[in-house]
């Protein structure tokens, strides 16, 4: 029989039939004893003498039993159970300690679990596609022109796609929106993507119903076929099993549905409808860099190889098409990395921060344990005297701390699950991959691992201390002033570490808060308060460009007539970009070519109504648009301050000058073949984000650029703008009941959302830093309070010898503050090294901003002072007589 089988059987017997095994053992030894006695009687010894000799020969029966038990299988396991049972009893005996320790651990393990589950879902979990690590995202860059990430040109993409030895398949796509409802249903807009044939095979997605695209599906514009998402199929088409082949109206085009995607598939960006890309190769200019591109690498090809090859192709294209491709290179990354690129630094910083909180919590619990093990010296000494070896004591202590961390871990896991939900609700809309966040085996393993690790981490120092105990002195000193230097220094070190860690965390939080405040001080160039915004995109056969203009003119007129409305306007490009896409156009001032510096695209807005007054964008020179700037009137344009200064010298100088607008890509008939007169100069607004700056902006009236069927409306109200949404919807429906409004927000929310994850990172970081500060304060207080208790007698003697209250105060505070100050200095050193990590999360604040560092140090010193003062005051109030006679 293999020995492990016999050991296992023995183990089972020992564990589960323990009583029987023990009885058998007693019986066997009793029999042995009798046998000895009888043998000795047979040899002629008297019965009583024989018994005496037998006892001596057998030795202590209990010790013998213990020795036999030790060879048995499962001895260690049994000892563990015993330790755990005893540990639990000890924890229950000191409920105050246990509650504080479990709460500290539970909270910090919970916070760690929550942040980790976020990191896990967003960064660690693979994308839900087969062999997702082989899916790559292709971007352009042009370092010479200062462009680090850009969409790509379709013609460049076709050149890359020919590298069939690199790619199993490739796809290019664009995103937009589709309008549903022309066929009688509820009007709504859903995200739509136009994709090339390879799209679904790059992602490895099989349709749930029907089929995916084949090359014959792409018959150019307008498209005739579509694939819809599982969600849309369920929601809008009632999970109709015969949906494939049916026709629906999407954005007033009849489309035949050819397939339904599997549940959960909504790439890219919650897309609900996929249509053929309808690219027209003969019209597509090579510098139209508006396409997104993905590819699936062949097995055995790595990212680097593909990058090298595509860069080489691009170098060739640069020579061949110098005018359009000068300086353009390509950047490959895995799709997963691309999706999380923006949030990865914040997430990792948060994980680090919450890890610090856990470390501080560990230090705190370790301190508690140290204080407790000092109180338990006598018990430990007795155990040692009874023969428990050092390892035995060490094991007992560690079992207790792991028990604590296990309870804390369970509490933490439950808390973490809840906190994850809270976190998710805090995150801004559109943060990537949130649908992947959840509790899975990785999160469970993490929580478990963290709990076990903390148990060992905070348990090991006190356990080592306890096991080093000198039995005789501990018993003699009666466990009162028996605290050795080593224990004190261990506690001091923990305290210094705690203060240092909290300082680093506070410094990080301080820098983030300061960045956030700086961001909020940024003047966006308009007044977002009391403004409601909504988008409206006219769909249907009834609308032609001149009707677009008329519809919005009428709508704005009706809205302005509503009570409480101060100004209403619309623009195809709203500041801070609530739609996520922006329209750029170039322009040429009359009479001279643009310099290189000027030739960058301007942010182009076609506006209608009282747009500038609605957003309170200041007029610097000239005038706003007026009703006379209509299709028949002279063509006019308004520019922003940056454009005026850069191109014309000053706002005043720009008035009366003329320019012509051209579209983003040449070769297409979108250039305006006429001059526009500059009639006004307005202040700059932040186009893309609060951190951006210095964009040129040009505005033209809708009546003179009527191609736009959509507008971002802005409505300035006297009261709460959110309350106006209902009126807005009613007025729109009164004009055309089939037109949905979407992206309805107050402009304050738009500003908030433009800060994205920044705000959440700052809030969380601050919460963690406050938790750290609190923990550190409690830690300092605990250590000092304990030290005062330990030194009661000494303080009594000092006072009896004439020390004043102030001397005692100074003594205690001095002791605590020395440690705190060492911690602050260590923490500052650490902060200088570590805040660099979050440098890219900061705005307008240096990673080692001296003011922040000083303020944080002062805050920590102040809190430490309070934490020291309370125990010091208690010490100073001691009555020397009582102190000396105590105990």
């Amino acid at each position, binding site marked *: 029989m293999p*020995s492990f089988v016999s050991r296992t059987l023995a183990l089972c017997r020992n564990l589960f039939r323990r009583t029987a095994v023990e009885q058998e053992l007693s*019986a*066997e030894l009793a029999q*042995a004893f009798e046998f000895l006695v009888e043998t000795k009687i047979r040899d002629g010894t008297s019965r009583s003498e024989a018994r005496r000799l037998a006892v001596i*020969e057998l030795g202590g029966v209990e010790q*013998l039993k213990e020795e*036999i038990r*030790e060879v048995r299988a499962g*001895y260690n396991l049994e000892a563990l159970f015993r330790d755990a049972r005893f540990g639990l009893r000890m924890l229950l005996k000191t409920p105050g300690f246990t509650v504080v320790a479990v709460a500290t651990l539970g909270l910090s393990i919970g916070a760690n679990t929550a942040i980790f589950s976020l990191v896990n879902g967003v960064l660690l979990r693979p994308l839900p596609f087969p062999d997702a690590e082989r899916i790559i995202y292709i971007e352009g860059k042009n370092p010479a022109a200062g462009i680090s990430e850009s969409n790509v040109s379709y013609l460049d993409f076709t050149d890359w796609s020919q590298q069939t030895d690199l790619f199993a398949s490739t796809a290019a796509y664009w995103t937009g929106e589709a309008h549903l409802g022309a066929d009688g249903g509820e009007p709504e807009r859903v995200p739509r993507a136009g994709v090339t044939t390879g799209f679904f095979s790059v992602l490895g997605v099989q349709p749930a119903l029907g089929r995916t695209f084949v090359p014959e599906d792409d018959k150019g514009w307008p498209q005739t076929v579509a694939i819809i998402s599982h969600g849309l199929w369920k929601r809008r088409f009632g999970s109709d099993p015969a949906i494939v082949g049916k026709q629906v109206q999407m954005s007033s085009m009849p489309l035949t549905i050819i397939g339904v995607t599997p549940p959960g598939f909504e790439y890219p960006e919650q897309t609900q409808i996929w249509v053929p890309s309808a690219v027209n190769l003969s019209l597509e200019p090579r510098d139209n860099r508006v396409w997104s591109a993905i590819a699936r690498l062949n097995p055995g090809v790595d990212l680097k190889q593909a990058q090298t090859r595509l860069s080489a192709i691009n170098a060739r294209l640069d020579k061949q098409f110098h005018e359009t491709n000068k300086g353009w290179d390509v950047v490959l990354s895995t799709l997963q990395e691309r999706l999380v690129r923006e949030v990865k630094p914040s997430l990792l910083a948060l994980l680090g921060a919450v890890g610090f909180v856990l470390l501080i919590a560990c230090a705190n619990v370790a301190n508690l344990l140290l204080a407790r093990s000092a109180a338990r010296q006598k018990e430990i000494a007795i155990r040692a005297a009874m023969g428990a*070896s050092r390892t035995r004591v060490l094991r007992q202590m560690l079992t207790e701390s792991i028990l604590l961390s296990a309870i804390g871990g369970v509490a933490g896991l439950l808390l973490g699950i809840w906190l994850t939900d809270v976190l998710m609700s805090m995150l801004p809309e559109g943060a990537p991959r949130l649908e992947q966040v959840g509790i899975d085996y990785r999160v469970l393993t993490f929580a478990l691992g963290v709990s076990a690790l903390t148990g060992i981490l905070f348990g090991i120092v006190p356990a080592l201390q306890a096991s080093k105990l000198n039995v005789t002195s501990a018993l003699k000193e009666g466990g009162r002033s028996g605290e050795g230097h080593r224990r004190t220094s261990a506690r001091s070190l923990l305290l210094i570490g705690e203060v240092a860690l909290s300082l680093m965390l506070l410094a990080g939080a301080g820098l983030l808060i300061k960045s956030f405040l700086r961001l909020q001080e940024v003047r966006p160039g308009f007044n977002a308060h009391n403004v409601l915004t909504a988008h409206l995109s006219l769909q249907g056969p009834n609308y032609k460009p001149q009707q677009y203009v008329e519809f919005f003119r009428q709508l704005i007129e009706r809205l302005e007539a509503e009570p409480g409305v101060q100004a209403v306007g619309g623009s195809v490009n709203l500041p801070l970009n609530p739609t996520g896409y922006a329209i750029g156009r170039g322009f040429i001032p009359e009479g001279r070519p643009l310099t290189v510096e000027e030739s960058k695209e301007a942010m182009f807005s076609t506006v209608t109504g009282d747009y500038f007054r609605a957003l309170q964008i200041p007029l610097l020179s000239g005038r706003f648009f007026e009703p006379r700037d209509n299709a028949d009137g002279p063509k006019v344009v308004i520019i922003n301050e940056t454009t005026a200064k850069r191109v014309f010298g000053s706002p005043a100088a720009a008035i009366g000058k003329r320019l012509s607008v051209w579209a983003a890509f040449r070769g297409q008939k979108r250039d305006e073949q006429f001059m526009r007169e500059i009639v006004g100069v307005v202040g700059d607004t932040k186009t893309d984000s609060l951190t951006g700056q210095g964009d040129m902006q040009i505005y033209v009236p809708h009546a003179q650029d009527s191609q736009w069927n959509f507008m971002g409306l802005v409505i300035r109200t006297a009261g709460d703008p959110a309350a106006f949404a209902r009126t807005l919807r009613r007025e729109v429906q009164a004009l055309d009941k089939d037109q949905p409004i979407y992206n309805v927000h107050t402009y304050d929310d738009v500003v908030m959302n433009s800060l994205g994850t920044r705000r959440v990172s700052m809030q969380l970081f601050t919460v963690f830093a406050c938790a750290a500060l609190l923990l550190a304060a409690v830690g300092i207080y605990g250590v000092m309070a304990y030290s005062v208790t330990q030194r009661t007698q000494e303080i009594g003697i000092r006072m009896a010898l004439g020390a004043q209250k102030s001397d005692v105060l100074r003594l205690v505070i001095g002791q605590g503050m020395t440690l705190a100050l060492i911690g602050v200095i260590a923490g500052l050193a650490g902060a200088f090294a570590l805040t660099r990590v979050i440098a890219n999360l900061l705005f307008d604040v240096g990673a080692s901003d001296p003011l922040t560092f000083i303020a944080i140090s002062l805050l920590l010193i102040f809190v430490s002072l309070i934490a020291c003062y309370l125990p010091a005051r208690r010490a100073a109030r001691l009555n020397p007589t009582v102190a000396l006679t105590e105990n």
Partner: protein
Amino acid sequence: MSIRRNRPTELLQGTLDLLILKALAHGSLHGLAIAHRIEQITNGTFEVKPGSLFPALHGMEEARWLVASWGESQNRRKAKFYRLTKTGLRQLEKETSDWRRVSSAIAAALRTA
């Protein structure tokens, strides 16, 4: 993590196991009877104390070299009798040949000047 009792040196421990196996080679015996038999067959050289005997017996039982059963001793008392299993018998053969090799090697070593 556990605390091991102080074992005799490896050789002596092995020797005790070997002697117990040998003592049981011809039939089952109860605990102290095994000690007696060892004393007999070693001409009184080895006196096995209960403190070494019983832990060794239990260890060997858990390793399934021995099985124990309760029976009646000569003086008609219930006693726990140990006997060899097949594994135990193989172990005895192996340890016997090991011992022979070691002892002849040591003897040879001691013969050299």
